[in-house]
């Protein structure tokens, strides 16, 4: 398979089709509508299910229903639509159903605008809805990673029977880059044993998130937490650039992460020993490795397209070992290499590595 020039939104949509997506339900919202549009044609072509729902609330509950039937299903949206899914996402988590949701973040709060943002980090990683749960959150920073994360998302969702989110932003959705799509896969022929497909010749299946009696629900919560612990230990992912000898560490994900690659190059050219730590999973947050690095480096700079959300996790993990500086842009502004670089130099000066 050769690389082709692909727009992010089209890429993840087509990747889903090729990974055997059996049903898509969604509601248009910029900056990810091209995905829905692409699927409106492709899914029907492939004889699969595409349905434009009457709202994001309906969409996530349709996904919930299809997922209960044991098929690969997903939806995609952005900020306001993601908020509307909160209740449904909590039900999905509570009933332990594999579901994949893409959130191409845009400027907020409220209607905000449609430019790229990373301001839904808290909402996606800390909870995504009421009650105790964490979705797995993948953070691609280019079109190829976005494509690969779709396959990973389905794999993890089904392995752990859990909710997996892909945290994109308007920029990853709109950008065109060279990338390779996976080969076409047909839809799964079989349905998992727990799926509600009609109790033919087997015990019936009931899928619910209701557990009357505190003790009963606590049992479920404990199982859920145990699963999350397991995920936390096995699925934390990250990528690093020139951290071996790094004295200053950039921490950023997604679009901010790739921008920091340029920052790093410039700084290195000037001889500054800087490394980049780029979380590929936002939950579980790659705590162990970051903690290690926080012992090695003399300063950390967190770069986000938000007021500083992942920043809190970095602070929690670094435990005050080294000074942490933050460079954040909001409202859909894409951070500029030169501005980040200025802050980086300042930090370097503070911690006297220069």
């Amino acid at each position, binding site marked *: 398979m050769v*690389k*082709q*020039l692909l727009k992010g939104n089209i890429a993840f949509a087509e990747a889903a089709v090729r990974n055997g997506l059996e049903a898509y339900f969604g509601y248009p919202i*910029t*900056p990810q509508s091209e995905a829905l549009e692409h699927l409106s044609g492709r899914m029907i072509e492939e004889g699969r299910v595409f349905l434009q729902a009457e709202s994001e609330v309906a969409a996530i509950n349709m996904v919930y229903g299809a997922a209960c039937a044991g098929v690969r299903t997903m939806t995609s949206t952005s900020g306001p639509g993601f908020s509307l899914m909160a209740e449904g996402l909590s039900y999905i988590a509570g009933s332990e159903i594999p579901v994949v949701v893409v959130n191409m973040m845009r400027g907020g709060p409220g209607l905000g605008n*449609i430019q790229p943002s990373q301001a839904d980090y808290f909402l996606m990683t800390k909870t995504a809805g009421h009650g105790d749960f964490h979705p797995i959150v993948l953070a691609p920073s280019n079109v190829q990673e976005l494509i690969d994360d779709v396959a990973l998302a389905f794999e993890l969702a089904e392995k752990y029977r859990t909710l997996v989110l892909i945290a994109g932003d*308007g*920029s990853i959705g*709109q*950008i*065109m*880059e*060279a990338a390779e799509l996976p080969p076409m896969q047909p839809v799964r022929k079989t349905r998992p044993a727990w799926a509600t497909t009609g109790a033919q010749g087997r015990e019936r299946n009931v899928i619910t998130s209701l557990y009357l009696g505190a003790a009963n629900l606590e049992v479920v919560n404990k199982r859920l937490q145990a699963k999350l612990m397991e995920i936390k230990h096995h699925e934390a992912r990250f990528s690093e650039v020139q951290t071996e000898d790094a004295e200053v560490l950039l921490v950023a994900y997604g*679009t901010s992460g*790739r*921008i*920091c*690659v*340029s*920052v*790093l*190059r410039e700084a290195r050219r000037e001889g500054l020993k800087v490394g980049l730590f780029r979380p590929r999973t936002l939950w579980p947050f790659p705590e162990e490795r970051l903690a290690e690095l926080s012992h090695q480096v003399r300063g950390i700079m967190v770069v986000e397209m938000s007021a500083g959300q992942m920043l809190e996790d970095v602070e929690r993990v670094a435990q005050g070992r080294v000074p942490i500086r933050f460079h954040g842009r909001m409202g859909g502004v*894409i951070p*500029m*290499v*030169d501005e980040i670089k200025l802050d980086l130099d300042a930090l370097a000066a503070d911690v006297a590595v220069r």
Partner: protein
Amino acid sequence: MRHEETVFSGFGGQGVLFAGQLLSYAGLAEGLYVTWFPSYGPEMRGGTANCTVILSEEEIGAPVVRHPTAAIVFNGPSFTKYEPLVKPGGLLLVNSSLITARSAREDVRAVFVPATDVATELGNVRMANMVLLGGFVELTGLVSLQTIVQQLDEHLSERQRKWLEPNERALHRGAELARQSG
């Protein structure tokens, strides 16, 4: 090392985004790393459109830059916006049919091509984007004109097929003019 950060900017409808994409396809065809990043917004007409195309031999980090190494400006507002931003030593390619202004900058290479007029001559005002792209390729040698033509051939939709030939001419004409005025 081949590395160019180019901004295409003009009115919506001037084919700014497609010109950028065509360059991107060509870059990919010639084995370069490529990013194409558009300005995007809700359906509102009469706005300006622009995209940033980066072609490079090394993997690309930031898909947008404050100071492009080249700017191709299709209309007045775009000139005003990008003329001051081009990197020193960079290229400023101007559609002189719609832009009368002249650049005061000494440190950039400003080239003026009457793209709109040329396109009209060649039979369709909408081909101004190809005239400018042809000029750009000629001036930078970033990719070969042949590659551009091949990619054009590959990516023109059925409905537009009939324009392949004229567009080719527009590309070559633009290259020519650039060579002269460049």
